[in-house]
């Protein structure tokens, strides 16, 4: 057939383009681990053998665990083409404070209460953004402010402490003890923190959700093009709601660990997470335009953020310079991200 020949000719021209996109996909998937390797080498040069010591690796992992847990969830929001969940900070704070407040009712109620409070945030976000198509940034910013108000009014603007909340009852005190021990539980002779295990479990769950479930595969279409997904018989509202719910659930887990680690429930617990988590997620190759990126990559992004902070601290870069570096790294990553999107034909 003549059109076959024409097609073949057209494709010949195309091949070059696919090669580039294939290569860029590989770079997107694995590139981040090349950065991990480079940072490892840099770390080794700076601290020699000490860098790969159990102690240092543990401290890197512990340091990234809180961000990492949150990123596993945020990845879904980015993947659904809703850019960022600006209500992460207050979701983290709310779930932490809720958990601390519920300690007198036992550790199970405390944890479940914290998770439920956080997850509820995701439901509200999901309905407004997924169903009614609210502007995701403006809405989550607004809701963050509402939550901030609720949390501050409910607790009178003060911090709460597990042992103080528990009061005199021995059962409650035991629960408070248990609560604060979450962040201090280690496996394998003290080398593997519970937080890291939870992070890895959540990443596995996220990986399965995104690649091996109907939800994940539908979210891919929803993220690429909402209208197409709607007209393909995909329940777009439900899919986006689920993405936000998972995101908030992960944030709630972060919130509980955060409160447990600091032994404080405070409205300022989650400050800065909206930004640092987005950095890690984008670094891991999630595309802001939606529907592109992998959980494996996001995990790499989390590692890089952790190692970068670790190395900066090891070299002795002061906090303020670290802000600057983080900001510049973020902008650079976003620029790369936007550029490769444009190469894929979508700006």
């Amino acid at each position, binding site marked *: 057939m003549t059109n076959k020949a024409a097609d073949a000719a057209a494709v010949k021209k195309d091949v070059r383009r696919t090669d580039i996109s294939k290569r860029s996909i590989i770079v997107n998937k694995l590139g981040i681990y090349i950065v991990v390797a480079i940072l490892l080498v840099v770390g080794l040069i700076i601290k020699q053998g000490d860098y790969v010591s159990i102690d240092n690796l543990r401290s890197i992992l512990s340091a990234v665990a809180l961000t990492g847990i949150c990123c596993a969830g945020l990845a879904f929001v980015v993947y659904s083409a809703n850019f960022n969940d600006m209500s992460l900070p207050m979701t983290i704070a709310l779930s932490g404070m809720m958990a601390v407040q519920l300690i007198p009712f036992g550790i199970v109620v405390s944890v479940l209460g914290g998770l439920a409070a956080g997850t509820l945030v995701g439901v509200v976000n999901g309905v407004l953004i997924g169903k009614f198509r609210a502007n995701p*940034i403006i809405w989550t*910013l607004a809701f963050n402010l509402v939550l901030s108000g609720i949390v501050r009014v409910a607790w009178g603007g003060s911090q709460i402490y597990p042992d103080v909340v528990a009061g005199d009852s021995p059962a409650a005190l035991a629960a408070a003890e248990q609560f604060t021990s979450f962040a201090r539980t280690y496996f394998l002779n003290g080398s593997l923190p519970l937080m890291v295990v939870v992070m890895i479990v959540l990443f596995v769950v996220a990986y399965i959700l995104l690649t091996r479930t109907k939800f994940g595969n539908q979210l891919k279409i929803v993220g690429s093009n909402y209208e197409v997904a709607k007209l393909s018989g995909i329940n777009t509202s439900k899919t986006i709601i689920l993405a936000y719910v998972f995101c908030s659930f992960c944030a709630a887990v972060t919130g509980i660990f955060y409160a447990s680690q600091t032994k404080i429930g405070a409205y300022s617990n989650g400050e800065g997470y909206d930004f640092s988590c987005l950095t890690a997620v984008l670094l891991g190759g999630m595309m802001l335009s939606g529907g592109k990126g992998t959980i494996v990559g996001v995990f790499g992004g989390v590692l890089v953020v952790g190692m970068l902070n670790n190395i900066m601290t090891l070299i002795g870069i002061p906090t*303020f310079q670290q802000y600057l570096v983080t900001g510049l790294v973020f902008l650079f990553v976003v620029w790369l991200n936007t550029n490769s999107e444009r190469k894929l034909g979508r700006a």
Partner: protein
Amino acid sequence: METTKKVKLNAGFINDYRAYIFLAAVLVAGLFANNFYTVFNFTSIFNSSALYTFIGIGFTLCMIAGHMDLSVGYMATLGAIMVLGMHTLSGLPWAVSFIIAIGVGALFGLFNGVLVAKAKIHSFIATLGTQFVIKGIMNIYCNGAEISVKGDYGLTDAMAVTVPVLPFSVYFLITLATVVIFAVVLSKTRFGRNVYILGGNLETAWLAGIKSDKNTIVIFMLSGIVCGFGGALYAVYTGTATPTLGEKGIAPLMVALTATIIGGTDINGGKGSVVNTFISILAIVAMFSVMTTIVGKFEMQILFIGIALAFCVIYETLSKYNKQKTIGLRPNLYNEYKKETGRQRI
């Protein structure tokens, strides 16, 4: 048709003037608060609205053009640090210090503008990153410490001087003048009108030969300039500048965002006014004052403006969601519908 028009007009009226209605409601509530209607209280309301107003102008300007500048809070903080740093630490005269503070604001505005217009990064993502760059640079400069006016309180005192009878300080008058300048620029100059067209429909702008990249960069620079200036004024007025100004209590960014949205600026651009934003800021600050005497809790203030903002966002979202359903309606079929059913609304 008549009835629908009327209903629309009413809803539209409330919607268009919601900033003023909000202010009126707060003023009524003020009747029940102690010492609300005093010259002293009004002076303090006006003075504390100044910083928010500058940030609000920057934010509104960008939003009219269809962008979001999340770095306005830090931009103002940077202005504050720079002016006092230059004056107190480096011993430069006030005028030079102000020029440097404004210049640095303009520089970061340029940075934002280039990221958005040339690198094509979503504005809220780009400015989210710029925030941290500014935070880093600012803290490196001042070493994370507060900078104060040392000894030289002349200008600080001058700004606090109030005009006779009216509760206006010099500080507030400068703020007012800035609002007027920006209102005039936006409504009366070609540049200002182009900002609206850019935000309203890029296609229209393109066909009319309006250079969108250049204008976007200028818009972000203006936002940086006005925020830098506002921050600098605030620092001089209060006599100190801290690098955490943008984070303390209710973040100024959130007040600016809330005021912009309550003031009726369209989230997608093309519509809005700095005067409405200013009115909303006055209403918010007055509400804070009322609440301090009635409720006595600072926390309630956050909750209230949070709810006000969320309410407006939900309202806009739902009205857009409903409007979507009648896009493409054919007028002749609509007339037929009215004839056939006697009903007016679909």
